[in-house]
């Protein structure tokens, strides 16, 4: 059985590797099939009033310098080998290697999305299970109204309200950034508290955006489980309520884990809004700013990084599920 499981894990890993390769390919070819060229953005088009003038010979030299005259497949091979050496090009706007920018932003996004994911999943599962257990009761009805309500508020609007109420009116939390600039910290605890107070509002906002989905999913899956014979049997064995809930949870968790991993992509999109609203220096704001500045290398690099993270999380979810349910992948 363990051999079957490792076989399953390896084959899933290969699938994800292929997916990642396809993402790299799309990332490479998509800009190249679009009209215009890299020089056009530097020299401007015919009608532009930019005072840069380049003759044909200079143009050819420049193209040659950047290997842009090579056939596409050669360029692609260069691109792939560079990508595996963590060379994603230079940022046009910041004029530093893209990887350096990404590595500077990544910890903040991981902190923000990680804590929000942890909170929304924990509370989503707890409320969902409780709601399913008391289906038809007052708590269930209340949650079924409140949760979709939070889901239907756009994330940026909720963020703006939170900034106004908890940042501006009451002054409890800072309204933007991830740390106080040029701050002299008394010690590591002070430092951590500063990061935490900056983190609170965007994290709560992202949690409020994510939790309703998890809650509804868990509630639905658990309500289905409640009708299963093993739940009735657990009751007639005289098990305690907590033990019965544990059984329901074990049987519901596999689709929930898969679904959360699949929703991670949407969470990245949500993070773009929320980081922008709170000026949080994570990947989301980087993507937003790079889009404004037409900083394509950074955009492409960020996409690759994000897809890598989403794929890795999905892979981790698959592995976790195969350990919870030994039947996974044994069809």
């Amino acid at each position, binding site marked *: 059985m363990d051999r079957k499981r490792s076989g399953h894990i390896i084959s899933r890993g290969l699938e994800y590797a292929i997916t990642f390769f396809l993402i790299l390919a799309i990332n490479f070819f998509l800009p190249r099939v679009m009209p215009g060229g890299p020089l056009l953005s530097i020299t401007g088009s015919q009608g532009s009033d930019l005072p840069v003038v380049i003759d044909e010979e200079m143009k050819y030299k420049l193209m040659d310098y950047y290997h842009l005259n090579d056939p596409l497949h050669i360029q692609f091979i260069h691109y792939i080998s560079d990508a595996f050496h963590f060379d994603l090009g230079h940022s046009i706007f910041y004029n530093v290697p893209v990887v350096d920018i990404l590595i500077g932003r990544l910890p903040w996004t991981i902190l923000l999305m990680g804590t929000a994911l942890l909170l929304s999943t924990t509370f989503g599962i707890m409320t969902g299970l409780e709601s399913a257990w008391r289906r038809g009761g007052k708590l269930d009805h209340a949650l079924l109204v409140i949760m979709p309500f939070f889901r239907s508020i756009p994330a940026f609007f909720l963020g703006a309200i939170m900034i106004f109420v908890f940042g501006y009116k009451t002054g409890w939390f800072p309204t933007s950034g991830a740390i106080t600039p040029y701050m002299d910290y008394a010690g590591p605890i002070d430092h951590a508290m500063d990061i935490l107070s900056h983190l609170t509002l965007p994290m709560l906002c992202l949690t409020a955006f994510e939790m309703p989905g998890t809650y509804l999913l868990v509630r639905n899956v658990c309500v289905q489980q409640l009708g299963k*014979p*093993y739940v009735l*049997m657990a*009751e007639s064995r*005289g098990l*305690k309520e907590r033990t019965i809930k544990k059984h329901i949870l*074990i*049987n519901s968790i596999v689709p929930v884990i898969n679904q959360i991993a699949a929703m991670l992509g949407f969470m990245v999109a949500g993070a773009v809004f929320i980081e922008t609203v709170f000026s949080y220096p994570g990947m989301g704001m980087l993507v937003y700013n790079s889009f404004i500045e037409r900083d394509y290398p950074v955009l492409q690099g960020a996409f690759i990084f994000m897809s890598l993270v989403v794929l890795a999380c999905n892979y981790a979810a698959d592995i976790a599920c195969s350990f919870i349910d030994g039947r996974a992948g044994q069809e």
Partner: protein
Amino acid sequence: MPLLDVKELSVNFSTKEGVHHVLKNVDLNINKGEIVGLIGESGSGKSTLAMTVLDINSRNREMSGNISFMEERIDNLKKERMRNIRGKHIGSVPQSSMNALDPLVKIRSQFFETIKAHTDMSRQEMLSLTARSLEMVGIDPLRMNSCPYEFSGGQRQRIMIALSMLLSPELIIADEPTTALDATVQLKITTLLKDVVQQKNTSMLVISHDLHTISRICDRIYIMYAGRIVETGTRDEILNDPVHPYTQKLLASRLPLMCEPVRVKGISGTPPSTLKKYEVCEFMERCDKVSDICRTVRPPECTGNVKVACHMECHLE
């Protein structure tokens, strides 16, 4: 005093469609060491009776009547006290018990949690009790670390029986214990049930729609129709000398073994709706021995010394 004594039990469920009258004035008792069969067709209220005794169907339920178990009233008992009785004093082999084990949890953990819910045994004691119980039903104790999906249906059924007997309850309620199994396994399981009951000196209520499979192991039998007990008696009385037209038809719809092909007589018509309240005998519409009195007066209730709920019985005397 019988071990389990159900008196004048009526159970209704209120739903959006209306009130379902599922059990009507049911009297049933089980003595110590006895195996009692409860036979009836689907929807007659057999499982509801079992679940009401165990108090695991309290959603939307309205009930009246008494249930006594070991000389204690157990209807309207506090939740925590009732939980202590379930599993410890009343074991249950549920309907579709092949799926009644949590598919993702090891057999051993499921046995352990039952023990933990009712006693303070040490790990070693729990282990040996689990091993003994599995051995009793012919499952290799070495396999207790496997998950339910790694066993066949018949094996799961035997594990289920071991689990319900684990804490040597005084009463076992087996709800359709053989329904999902093929004929050869059915025979093994019924024999196993009887053996286990004798070994552990418990009592058992066996619920089934199949009079012939179950009757082999029963001492007494109750026949249920549309939520009412229509006839009761010892096994021989019911099998050899059925009085109620429903019991007669139930026996006539058996498939005779080792005999020339015959047309099996079924019972025409459909069981009555639980939504309707009947002023006369529920079986009248399907009965071919209807007399004038059936159309106006309810037959006697099958309580106390009355053993057949039919006017015909009165006429015979």
